[in-house]
């Protein structure tokens, strides 16, 4: 078992990719079979992911040499504490595939089913591969796989509006990928290496040049677009709100986190604290932008009527929280950034679960009623109690009400900001939280406490295959809040190792 689990980080990526490639073949004669195939593949991927995480916590980080070539010469896959995010990705992937079975047939024709499942598996495979790799160029390759499949999934319904949104996403996303590629090329020119650990080592050996700094700037710009940070967020609302809801859940829950994982990898694995490149100027700047992001996202969300638009803008706001958390870092005292880092990392997990719940609930409501405007959805809560109950739990959770998941992360980030001496950031965070509370109260008020209008009175509860993922995720929101020590046990070593502290560090 131990011997076998060595292969898991690669096997889980390959499982998703090969599963995606085989989808059109296995469902050639029966298009509906593609669902069962995708479900099976994602379960297999989840299993390999469990093995890898189990090995991480019993034996230690896995360094896997592809083809047996030692790192700077070949490609290294490195499964460390940041890579535990793959567990979240694969688990959410399974749930979203289960949800898709009923939901997606309502949006696309049966002809396109294998294409849809193939693209979802490619997206998951790209994200998993991205999160576990230890090689810069490999990072780019998987970034391309996941971005391309993301653009296609937004446009899959074939309507004019989604095609426009997808095109906007494609153009901005392609430029951002190009920025990342330029950054990799510059770093390769300076260090002559593509392996992250090797680049980090060689950057510490030499004096930083203009090229090093420009490469850093390009990485941050490129990954900020993927993460939808403030001035670069314009593609997100359309793409996330107009895509089919299962795709929105994937994009908003997971794909924007890929940008954050990229920033984390570049800052803390390549440029490294204690290295010769001082990036606190950059992280300070990012922190201020994150503060603006929080306010802008929350402000626009407040004035939306379309529920999916509200959730999409709220994603922008939450990305602000995460980036604020991870940008609280100082070179002289790395332990000062610890609380903020823990908060930022745990919010990656919590926000993924919460936002997926919200989008899946919105999808179930749209599937049943056909309405997406809040003013049309008055009183839907009495007709679809389970879906709307889950929506309420998730809404409370994202607003940060104590027994739910969202509270822990905001608590840690605020504590981190105060300990760091950035009271303005803490203030912005609290104001943003108030805004969030405001617009989620608006939703809950509309769906539960208003009198239903005519078409709404005739709907009933969503089908079981959609309810199961929703209920599991809503329970997840509660569990992550009530038993917060479970995710914290996973996150704390990750935060500590990233700041260069021992994994057992406690403040």
């Amino acid at each position, binding site marked *: 078992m131990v011997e076998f689990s060595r292969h898991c980080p690669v096997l889980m990526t*390959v499982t998703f990719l090969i599963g995606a490639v085989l989808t059109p073949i296995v469902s050639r004669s029966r298009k509906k079979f593609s669902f069962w195939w995708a479900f099976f593949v994602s379960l297999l991927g989840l299993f390999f992911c469990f093995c890898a995480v189990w090995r991480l916590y019993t034996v230690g980080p896995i360094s896997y040499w*592809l*083809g047996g070539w030692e790192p700077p010469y*070949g490609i290294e896959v490195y499964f460390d504490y940041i890579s535990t995010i793959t567990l979240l990705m694969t688990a959410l992937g399974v749930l979203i595939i289960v949800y898709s079975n009923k939901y997606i047939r309502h949006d696309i024709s049966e002809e396109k089913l294998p294409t849809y499942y193939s693209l979802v598996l490619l997206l998951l*495979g790209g994200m998993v591969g991205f999160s576990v790799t230890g090689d810069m160029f490999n990072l780019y390759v998987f970034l391309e796989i996941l971005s391309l499949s993301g653009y296609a999934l937004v446009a899959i319904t074939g309507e004019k509006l989604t095609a426009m949104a997808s095109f906007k996403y494609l153009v901005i996303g392609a430029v951002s990928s190009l920025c990342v590629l330029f950054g990799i090329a510059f770093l390769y020119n300076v260090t*002559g290496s593509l392996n992250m650990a090797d680049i980090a080592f060689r950057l510490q050996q030499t004096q930083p040049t203009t090229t090093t700094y420009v490469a850093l700037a390009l990485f941050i710009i490129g990954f900020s677009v993927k993460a939808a940070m403030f001035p670069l967020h314009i593609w997100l609302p359309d793409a996330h709100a107009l895509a089919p809801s299962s795709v929105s859940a994937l994009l908003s829950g997971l794909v924007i986190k890929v940008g954050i994982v990229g920033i984390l990898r570049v800052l803390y694995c390549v440029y490294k604290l204690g290295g010769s490149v001082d990036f606190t100027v950059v992280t300070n700047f990012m922190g201020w932008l994150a503060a603006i992001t929080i306010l802008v996202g929350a402000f626009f969300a407040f004035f939306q009527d379309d529920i999916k638009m509200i959730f999409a803008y709220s994603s922008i706001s939450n990305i602000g929280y995460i980036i604020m958390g991870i940008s609280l870092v100082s070179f002289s005292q790395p332990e000062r950034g610890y609380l903020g880092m823990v908060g930022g990392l745990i919010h990656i997990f919590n926000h993924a679960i919460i936002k997926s719940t919200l989008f899946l609930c919105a999808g179930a409501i749209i599937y049943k009623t056909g309405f997406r405007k809040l003013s049309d959805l008055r009183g839907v809560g009495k007709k679809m109690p389970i879906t709307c109950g889950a929506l309420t739990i998730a809404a409370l959770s994202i607003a940060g009400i104590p027994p739910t998941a969202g509270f822990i992360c905001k608590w840690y980030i605020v504590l981190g900001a105060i300990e760091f001496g950035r009271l303005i950031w803490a203030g912005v965070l609290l104001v943003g939280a108030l805004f969030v509370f405001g617009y989620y109260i608006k939703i809950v008020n509309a769906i539960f406490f208003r009198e239903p209008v005519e078409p709404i009175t005739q709907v009933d509860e969503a089908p079981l295959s959609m309810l199961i993922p929703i209920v599991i995720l809503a329970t997840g929101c509660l569990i992550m809040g009530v038993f917060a020590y479970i995710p914290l046990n996973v996150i704390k070593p990750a935060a500590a190792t990233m700041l260069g502290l021992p994994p057992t560090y406690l403040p």
Partner: protein
Amino acid sequence: MKKGLAIFALLLLWVLLISTVVVLPPMGSPENPTYTHIVPRYLEKGVEEGGAHNIITGIILNYRGYDTMGEVTVIFTALMAVLAVLGRENFLLHTSKAEMSTVEKSIIVKSVARFLTPFIVLFALYIIFHGAESPGGGFQGGAILGASIIIITLTLGLAFVTKKLSLKYRVLFESAGPLGFFIIGMVGILCGQNFLTYLLPCVALAYQDLVRHLLLIIVEIGIGVGGGAIIASIFFAMEKVEKE
């Protein structure tokens, strides 16, 4: 205002990139880190370790094979993206029997295309199989293979080509690239080595080189056939939209 801002941002990016290129380590200088760190190992031992006389092939299929597997998957993703937007070619939508161009084609063009296609395919196969020894390989051969299919489609019509190359088989060919890598990778794992290992200790020493060569050729064929089929499929899918 918006336009001015965009131009300003582009100018800023331009200045940034140019200023970086100016201070890059000079091209061709022996102190350049790109020449001193990893590349010497590739140049010195690449032929014997990589298993291919063409060092490029050795690097992209052996040292960095996982990247190539990713790139092949990117090509497959591109096909899936096109199919998600445009859908497969569908004859039921056509009123006429799918002629690409309305211009009458002379018998000379048709005959020449028919006559040349086997030779183009042969050339593509030569490039694919000879990739380990000389410039070329799966990607280049696949592009030529795809081009040959496009040429006969343009001259003889979509109906003719899709009958010869029916969807049933094309679906299999499209996934050949990643599948080739997967098979090779699993052979490595079953032999107790890492994914994508070509030199297998479970094979008798005398045959190791032969086995490695065979595995490399399987991958090359996969990339070539897969690439060609994907180019053809994307081309066929685009045809439908023009007719609509």
